[in-house]
């Protein structure tokens, strides 16, 4: 499963590049992962700097969408976490933090668990595919929860 998905991600980039000239799609690009990265090269170059507005939006999104399962402090202990097998990831765990790349976190936030070979119960957030700054801020917030 993992391999096919990696293959897909690789394959996705040329295909997307060939569609990149569509102006209509630009405001809500929603392209694949490669397109998202390409759409914001300047910002991606600085992995720690983030726009305050994006940071604010990311925190709101975290508390609305992520905490029911992952918990307010990211301990994987949200009120809805009990019913899941596998359990939601515990962002506090140093072991989990070192086991995943930044790219993995940004992928799973946008495309859900199925995209990275994890549980399909982690849903996609399709409206964030056009908001790379917010995705980055979410990833940074998740990183900051390491204990």
């Amino acid at each position, binding site marked *: 499963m993992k391999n096919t998905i990696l293959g897909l991600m690789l394959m996705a980039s040329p295909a997307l590049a060939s569609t990149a000239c*569509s102006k*209509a799609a630009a405001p809500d690009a929603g392209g*694949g992962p490669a397109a998202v990265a390409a759409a914001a090269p300047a910002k991606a170059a600085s992995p720690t700097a983030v726009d305050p507005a994006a940071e604010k939006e990311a925190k709101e999104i975290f508390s609305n969408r992520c905490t029911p399962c992952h918990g307010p402090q990211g301990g994987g202990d949200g009120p809805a976490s009990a019913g899941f097998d596998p359990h939601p990831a515990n962002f506090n765990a140093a072991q989990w933090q070192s086991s995943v790349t930044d790219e993995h976190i940004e992928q799973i936030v946008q495309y859900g668990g199925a995209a990275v070979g994890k549980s*399909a119960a982690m849903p996609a957030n*399709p409206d964030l595919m056009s908001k790379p700054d917010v995705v980055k801020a979410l990833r940074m917030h998740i990183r900051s929860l390491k204990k």
Partner: protein
Amino acid sequence: MKPVWKALLLFGTMFAAGCSDAPAASPSGGSIGGGSSLSTLMQARGLSEDDVTAALKTYTPTGKKDEYLIFASGGHGGNLIVIGVPSMRILKYIAVFTPEPWQGYGYGDQTNALLKEGSRNGKEMTWGDMHHPALSETKGDYDGQFIFVNDKANARVAVVNLKDFVTTQIVTSPLIQSEHGSTFVTPDTDYVIETAQYPAPLGGRYADVSKFDDEYRGASIFWKFDRTKGRIVPEESWAVELPPYMQDLSDAGKLSSDGWAFFNSINTERSYGGNMEGKPSLESGASQNDMDYLHLFNWKKAEAVVKAGKTKNIAGMRVIPLQTAIDEGLLYFVPEPKSPHGVDVTPDGKEIVVGGKLDTHVTVYSFEKIMALIDQKKFDGTDAYGVPILPFQDAIRGQCEIGLGPLHTQFDADGNAYTSVFIESKVAKWSLKDLKVIEKIPVHYNIGHLLTAEGDTVSPDGKYLVAMNKWAIDRFNDVGPLLPQNFQLIDLATPKMQLLYDLPIPLGEPHYSQMIKADKIHAIDIYKPAGINALTHEKDPFAVESGQERIERKADGVHVYMTAIRSHFTPDIVRVKEGETVHLHITNIEQAKDATHGFTVGSHNIHVSLEPGKHSNITFVADKPGVYPMYCTEFCSALHLEMAGYFLVEPK
């Protein structure tokens, strides 16, 4: 007007050049409305060139009609929605499974009786979960005569006559308790297929869910349709018992694969939940195996097996037992990855496309290879119930890497396929020949079904595609936490797919739709002669002619024979005694297009729609003495308010 056209031509040229990064050019000289130029309007509204072409491709001036009609499931509304393409104007809600006041559906005798036909266990269902409409077909092509719809929650199928866009029949069988692979028609509409979803003991028996493997079963019902009568004939219908694998979608073979039907399945694990009983929830239990089974069912041969009497009667339905289906060579499996969703037969009937859902591919099965494997009896053993399993690699032509969450596939006239990609929120266009993705377009958001013009027939038009998105998130003004769904119209006629229009659909889960060329529909506009019962399309036995209006007292109550014409009911005063049963027989004797009257008696929960020439009957008990206005509820004329009268209930 001339300068405007010049401006538009300029746009056209820019498009041909494509890929321009330059800001919108401002063609000058155009004037619209109060003298503002096109470019000023564009600037003021923040519109791009693409927005303007999208508007030009969809805007339909008053009096102009649409090229295609969509028949869309009305989801939880239990009704059917008719939408024009490319304008995306909503033309009608057709009442089917639920009461609908405009059409007086469920507020008069004929439609009450119809809704009662759809009762389950003697209980009248007042909601439905409509999923998949199926237009009637002749030789695999839409013929515009009927449309069938299903109710997943209550396992019902309804027939809608497109002569007047009215529901005429609802059938249901206690054999199954829910369904999803429904409705799909065989290429000449001999049968309407209804395949169960959640396995249960057949016929409504009780058995604890721990006996899932032995007592729980799937089934597919083949409802026999009589085109000349316009009705499903339950006595000539039959079903086949299936293993409890949670059969999902269905499709009927066509042309070379005619005579076969295909059902996919999502739970060959036979998981049944139990997350408080130490078992995995269904979502994880059903997703363990890498492969589920595509079911291959020979319904033509099954028809002969039914005729030969090799069936068991379960809850009034003739059912081919699973073992008989195996012994007679009716049922085979071929593996399909992984918890798949859509199963769609290609226009030439030669291949079957299955969307992987939890796999990134669509898998393209070759019907010819499948037939050869069955002929050679080349099986990879059987499943737990003895159904032969065909070897996966030998049954497929190949797979196309689509993306995350491929669901449903439709086709165009040029050999392209279009698959909805749920997790990525995209539509993928791919080449059937090369099995390669050509282009993807983002949609907003979480696309379920998609449809192209006549896209599941033997001769798809393509041209337009509609993405049926489950979520709207940020697309529309906020209207509280319950958001509309989003139908997005996409142009397929240009080299690159272009998103043209967002149509919010304000009801739950309108799953699937079909798009038919509008000129295939030949609907009447007046019931002729006056006095027609819309359910039978024949003159109602109680029809009333002008001059024959009367009130008669009979053993079964008071019969009021009434006519309606602009702008009066005759009689306009009705006197009954407290406790009497009242039978109102009302004919709209108008024969003018759109001269519809409505009729109500206040405080009695009565309402009927009387289109020109239509006859309705209403029965009720006048149990509360008093004075009740009755009036026409449609604004029919300048003297509409005067089209009223008194219904007087005298105390005992």
